[in-house]
């Protein structure tokens, strides 16, 4: 059985315990959440939650059906990689080597958010692979801390 990453996009009622119930469905049934992002949609009463999970095709069908059963889940869609646009973001705090930082800006599309004599705070947005690539390079820049977001998909 082929184990792969799958992305699920959920539209849910914007209520306080919806996220808890979704997370509980994953943990209770032994599915994992690789990464997650959540925010309101154009309708403030509806939230969009994007979850990346890992499993076989059969498991994915189960996960989606379990989520659809939840009263506050309006829609659950499996986002196929070919048909969707997906982005993640990372903020990274790196050492003060300006030359190396400028290289990251030019070649990896990093943005400088903060500049200090001894460190920079950089922002990178891109696909998962682009972020992985950027982080590999930023690690050589004496990266002290980083914060990586969940995936957003359309």
């Amino acid at each position, binding site marked *: 059985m082929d184990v792969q990453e799958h992305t699920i996009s959920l539209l849910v009622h914007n209520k306080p*315990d919806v996220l*808890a119930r979704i997370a*509980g469905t994953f943990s209770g049934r032994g599915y994992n959440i690789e990464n997650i992002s959540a925010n309101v949609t154009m309708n403030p009463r509806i939230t969009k939650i994007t979850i990346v999970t890992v499993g076989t095709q059969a498991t994915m069908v*189960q996960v989606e059906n*379990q989520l*659809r*059963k939840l*009263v*506050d889940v*309006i829609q659950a869609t499996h986002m196929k990689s070919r048909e969707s646009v997906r982005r993640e973001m990372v903020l990274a705090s790196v050492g003060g080597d300006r030359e190396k930082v400028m290289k990251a800006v030019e070649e990896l599309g990093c943005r400088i958010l903060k500049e200090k004599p001894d460190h920079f705070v950089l922002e990178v947005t891109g696909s998962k692979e682009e972020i992985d690539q950027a982080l590999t390079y930023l690690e050589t820049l004496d990266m002290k801390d980083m914060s990586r977001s969940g995936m957003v998909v359309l």
Partner: protein
Amino acid sequence: MELNGSQVLLRALMNEGVDTIFGYPGGSILDIHDELFKSSFNHILVRHEQGAAHAADGYARSSGKVGVCLVTSGPGATNTVTGIATAYMDSIPMVIVTGQVPTPFIGTDAFQEVDITGITRPCTKHNFLVRHIDELANTVREALYIARSGRPGPVLIDLPKDVMRATTEYREPVSPSQGSSEPVYLPDAGPLTETVDLIKKAKKPVLLIGGGVIHGRATEELIEFARKVNIPVTSTLMGLGGFPGTDPLWLGMLGMHGTYYANMAISDCDLLITVGVRFSDRVTGRLATFASNATIVQIDIDATSINKNVLVHIPIVSDCRSALVQLNALLDRNGLEKIREGRESWITRIGGWRTEGPMSYCQGDTIKPQCVIETLYRMTKGDAIVATEVGQNQMWTAQFFRFDKPNTFLTSGGLGTMGYGFPAAIGAQVAFPDRLVVDIAGDGSIQMNIQELATAVNYKLPVKVVILNNGYLGMVRQWQELFYEKRYANTGIGGQCPDFVKLAESYGAVGLRAVKPEEVEPTIAKGLEAPGPVLMDFVVEAEEGVYPMVNPGASLTDMKLSSGIGM
């Protein structure tokens, strides 16, 4: 008109057709109890909140209505969790109303505060914390809707005390939001036609039913279908009563303690049609060999039950009744004699298995528990609502009491909750004051909610409790005999058993005892005739086992037919 929260609650419940509430008071629900006092609601006061939950469950299982219970915050709420999980596992429509500390105190570790919505999130179909009185009426309506629609289940409503104290201009609640839960599922025509084609070709078909047939109120259509096609019928524990146990097509229950012939038939069949079944491990045994020669059609309202444990060839997501109605119509158009052709050799083969491995047990000097149940069945002609506890008492009931009608067998199948049966029987008796309601228990299980004797006596609920007293936690002892070389660790309770006759009498109930086989029938007769609740203590053979037995993880065809001793 201006109403306070408690009045809104009761009015909203009444609008939904609720007239009975099982409960236990407490600080956070004092206001509600004050309103109950002034109202026409039938509030059944139990002696433990777990009893309230199981009683609401028994009420629901026997009547098909939504069971409602009302408990206070903190420990009152947590005491219902076992009952909620019991209902969740068996898909029982129930609404549990819990009191909660006032909203400013939530999250402050206040007195009798507990995050009950958090605790019950995994074992409720949905739950609500009502933060404003204007949400209350709609929430009640929505909760009842969710509880009974689609695949039924328990729903909890948490009510903070200040919300209940507030007042509002009462507005009739609007229709509940549909959300993803659940309009009536109608089956697609394609798979149904395919199913009929398979039925025509099948030489060895079997029909397996489960609890879904009873929840879906589809027994009439099911009986019509089975007889049209002349297909042998077996059932899971939860489906008992969904097809008449006295019908010639009936194979008995299948699975870990199923009949020999049901297990052989399902293992050999070439077409398996399942209706309202979720393929519990108790039913399938080893998955690799479960119905391995069969094409499988699965009809179920819940998409997550399909292809979860057993991969099926034709999945049909639908409520049972709609699917069966359409199947029956398709069958009528297809000419039934042809469909019934070629079944004779299959029926004969099954007949052979019936002869090879009938349900049996040996009689002797001691009372055999199976005999108690058979005698009870005979003397009541099967006309009773029967609840069970869990373990050997439960399995023997499933094996030796034939259920002809749905909603007459109340048992905790999914969770296997000891202590369920007695309060559930009380709930059923409340729903049907004029029917015979029996709880079949073990000496271990009956002690778990024995305090409900007070409830039964108080409301004159004439529940008849049959205790199969073997001095052990029987089912666990059986496993210790089979798998732990008879090291009976912590299962011998006979030495410290109460005198059940005196116990019954101390509560004001009738207590009876039988110790010899010839005393069984007169004791049952006396018990059934006695007014009010009765405990009947049958001192039975201590180490009797439930057979057949399929070891956990073994194939259904690997049945142990007896203990091999004392036959």
